[in-house]
């Protein structure tokens, strides 16, 4: 019952790419945040997979994953708070409307 490391890495890479794609192309801000979250979780898969099947398996990867989860949560919290502030000023969460500043 062994799943090879490479499949975890592939899964993580796919998730990362999906997340990146979403973060760069989606218009709704909340979806962008979700996409970013997806990228970070892809990394977590990587970390946990390495922690079990890496060159030198040890627990550090899982600890790392825990930290990255926490930090991601904080990031999303700030993101949502900013979104609320923005929504109050602008009445939109569409990223295309954020064009007050252009050069």
């Amino acid at each position, binding site marked *: 019952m062994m799943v090879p490391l490479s499949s975890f890495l592939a899964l993580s890479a796919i998730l990362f790419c999906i997340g990146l794609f979403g973060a760069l192309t989606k218009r709704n801000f909340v979806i962008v945040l979700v996409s970013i979250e997806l990228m970070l979780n892809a990394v977590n898969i990587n970390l946990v997979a390495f922690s079990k099947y890496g060159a030198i398996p040890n627990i550090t990867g899982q600890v790392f994953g825990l930290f990255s989860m*926490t930090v991601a*949560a904080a990031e999303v919290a700030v993101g949502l708070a900013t979104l609320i502030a923005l929504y109050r000023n602008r009445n939109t969460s569409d990223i295309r409307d954020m064009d007050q500043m252009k050069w």
Partner: protein
Amino acid sequence: MFSYWNSYLFVVLFLLLGIFLPFSSIVVLGPLIRPKNPYKAKLTTYESGVEPFGEAHVRYNVRYYLFALLFVVFDVEIVFLYPWAATFKQLGAFGLVEMLFFIFMLIIGLLYAWKKKVLEWM
């Protein structure tokens, strides 16, 4: 060692069953035995007997967001407390002091939300 894999396999079975049951009964079994007669009036949104008006996705109170934010922050802190609690015996007094610092910061966070009147529900 076997127990480790078996346990997770068991969990996966639960997941499959958990999805299978509603899926089979709603999507597969349901249409065979229940009537289906939709018409326009039936499909209108329920609004206590009057015609629905306005946008249903109303702007709800911003407090919901605030509580969601608070939840995210504090729930994640709990994630750190669990491993600490599980290995508390090995960590000893140093672990205690470290975690007291952590909890102290948690309390400051709570105090902050309290003082800034985030915890009041209007």
